[in-house]
């Protein structure tokens, strides 16, 4: 999806500074518990927000009671259990020379998929949090199968322009990102910009035009629905 020569230009600072808020619905804020099984069989657990979790009470023999961990730690949505050999195998695999043939988005998604398939790494998820990679979500949200089109995202906050983004896809690749700043000589109105985008790119235009609050709601809903589909 992401072309390695992607051009990112004409980003209006007053709009682009809101990028973090705009991608927030797709990013994960909940915590992951990482557990390392060491050579001597002992376990060590730490969360993605760097809290050490004592594991003795959840371990019987060499089994970890994952359900009990989820029950006691409601902020944890995923538990990853690694052996050192599993990690060695994983990091060796995901850095082999063939990975440079992939687009970065596919590589990123694969980092999660390969983790699930690696012997020595076990992933446990809560039922309601099945999606692990935000890039996969973002990719489906942007309907990446679009071959040649422009996506015009136009978000307002109480009627005032908050963020906009022009994403140009060509042969399924995201080739260009810009904002209405590329037409700096005209008024920053949706209809005007839409017409100029149409005139310049000569492609089908898909618009995502809504209030910020609605966007965040629908983004969150989209993520929730995507979780259900998995």
């Amino acid at each position, binding site marked *: 999806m*992401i*072309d*390695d*020569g*992607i*051009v*990112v*230009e*004409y*980003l*209006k*600072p007053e709009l*682009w*500074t809101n*990028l*973090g808020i705009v*991608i927030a619905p797709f*990013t994960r804020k909940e915590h992951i518990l*990482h557990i*390392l099984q*060491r050579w001597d069989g*002992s376990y*060590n*657990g*730490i*969360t*993605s927000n*760097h809290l*050490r979790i004592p594991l003795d009470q959840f371990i019987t023999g060499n089994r970890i009671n994952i359900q009990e961990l989820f029950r006691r730690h409601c902020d944890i949505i995923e538990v*990853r259990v*690694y052996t*050192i050999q599993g*990690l*060695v195998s994983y*990091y*060796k*695999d*995901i*850095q*082999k*020379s063939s*990975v*440079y043939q*992939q*687009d*970065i988005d596919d*590589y*990123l998604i694969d*980092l*999660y998929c390969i*983790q699930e398939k690696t012997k020595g790494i076990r992933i446990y998820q809560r039922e309601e949090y099945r999606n*692990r990679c*935000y*890039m996969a979500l973002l990719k489906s949200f942007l309907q990446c199968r679009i071959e040649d089109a422009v996506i015009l995202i136009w978000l307002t906050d109480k009627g005032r322009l908050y963020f906009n983004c022009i994403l140009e896809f060509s042969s399924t690749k995201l080739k260009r*990102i810009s904002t209405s*700043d590329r037409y*700096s000589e005209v008024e920053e109105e949706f209809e005007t910009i839409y017409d100029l985008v149409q005139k310049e790119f000569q492609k089908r235009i898909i618009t995502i035009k809504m209030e910020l609050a609605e966007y965040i709601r629908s983004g969150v809903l989209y993520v929730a629905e995507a979780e259900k589909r998995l």
Partner: protein
Amino acid sequence: MIKFTETGIMIHGIEKPLYSGSVHYWRMNKEKWSMVLDHICAMGFDIIETYIPWSVHEYEEGKYDFGKIDPNKDLDGFLMLCESKGLSVIVRPGPHINAEMTLFGYPVWILMDEEIQAKNPWGTTVVYPYVTKQFPIPSYASEKLYDKTKAFFMKLKPVLKKHSGEKGCIILIQADNETCNFFRDRPYIMDYSEASIKLYHQFLSIKYKEIGRLNKVYHSTYVNFEGIAAPHGFYGKVKEDLPYYFDWVEYKEYQILNSLKCMISVIDSLELGIPVFHNCAYQDYTPISVQRDEQIERLDVAGMDAYPEPGDTVMLRRRIRYLAGSSRLPFVPEFGSGSWFDREILLTAEEEEFGYLYAIMNGLKAVNFYMLVERDRWTGCPITNDGRIRSSYYEMFCNLLGIMKKNSLHQYQRSPKILILRDYDMGRFRALYSIMDPNLLSSNCFIQGPDIPQELFIPDLDLQLDLDDGPGAYCDDGWVDMVSQILDESHYDYNYSDQYLPVVKWMEYKIIIAATYGFMERDIQEQLYQFSKTKGRILIIGPHVPRWDKEFNRCEILETAIGNGDGNILVVKNADDFEAGRLELGQQFVCENPEIEISVHYSRVTPKVQLLYLANKTSNTETARLSCEKHYRISSIWKGKGYRKDNCFITNIPPYTVQIWKVEMEENKDD
């Protein structure tokens, strides 16, 4: 002749401040160059900086374009235009560029060359997951990389030489860029390539000279250096196992220093006769060392880059005071102006201004604003890529450059009496003390890979040593942070450095506060002890007193001195107990408000004239009530409004604002 000075740069006999800004000629339409450069001049700049990316000019292996095919690549034309406008130019030809370029400026055939790639401990490559394309990190040990780089530099030579010398605009050249293993600075991520392991053995043989000496330290029976395998993680059991791992960490530093030496050798072949500098990314800890970079022959200045978050003062204070305490010239070769596109937030002009002035207040002397002109994958600058002006940023720079130059801010200097010496070896220990170091799989906000917290790999051992085992990254030192905070609250000024600062520089301070743990090199213990015995000097150490040297032989130089009451040594085991008030250093201005930071800069020319910087680091308006025992005249030169009442000078400071006041001391009436 061109040379760095203590406050800026001397260009053919004229000393000037080093205030510069970045522009990327190849990313602009050539027709816009002149207009853009005019805007830059109008803001008050007379120096610009540009990268010269390898992948741009060698567009296919062996095929070069310097403007014949793509006019925007006309480097010679660009430099001629700069000369016509009276602009000096800093060049940064890499080979590492970054600049948000897809392969960080390296040609694809270079990065895909197996002889050039760094290797992870398990024999495959080391991925950098850049947002537009993942790529394999090259090995700093690869001789082929330098040979290929030299071949590219030789293609640049005619143009660079033409624009150097008396009439040329090129004044400085940078040796490589942020040479820190592409931000993968943990020791066991890389580099296990054949070339790197060869260099590792070379490092060991230089350090120990003969294998018997190494065996004695390692408690081993190696027949030769080549038989030593590099560690993939820490698997020691007792403290005597540590030297083997320390050596790997030190080798990683050696690899970087060696890389810079190789690059300077390549630069020397250009015969430009101009000063060379380097920019460290952000590390004041292993594997980077500003002081040791500057000990490399022909590397004149090592600066550090800075990309603060809005309202940040913690990072800036630490970094700039480290540069002020450690470098020949406190220089930030990349100070964020605008930002890369895959960052969650941009700074406003006001936020940027606060960061710049706060850095100057803390000792910044030279700066290159990165970038002045927007371009592909970068925004938030005073000038757009097509030559428009972004008024808020533009006006901020006009005002900032105006005040900096009009008042010669670079000619004033802080005069801290306290030097805080971080324990570089404790950083090394914290780095090596890891079962393994998985590569990071994230880069900025779009690329978030399944990373694992590093703390998961900290061994669970008792090495019978007094160590810094607090939480945090290996660059952190809780004791130093707490002591610094107490000094800040008392408005005492200080610099940072570490054991690599030449001892002669230690003597510029009255007090050294040194972080010390269970072990410390014999020489450093001895130097600290000698400092404590010097008349009028005080040594404060903590949280532990070293009892071992770095080979883990008993070494209690400081312990013995303390026991004998020999030397002026104060031990602060618990940083919370540190009482800054007992230092009796005296302060010219006293301010009760701990939220206000004060810094006094003294004129090099007129001793009675000082600049008083006041920073409000909070989101509320704060009042500074300043008392001073001496008589003085005070006038605002930047954003100050104040009045005198009850022998105090009072000023209200808006949130995140630096005020600058000019203070002229008068003779006391009683004198």
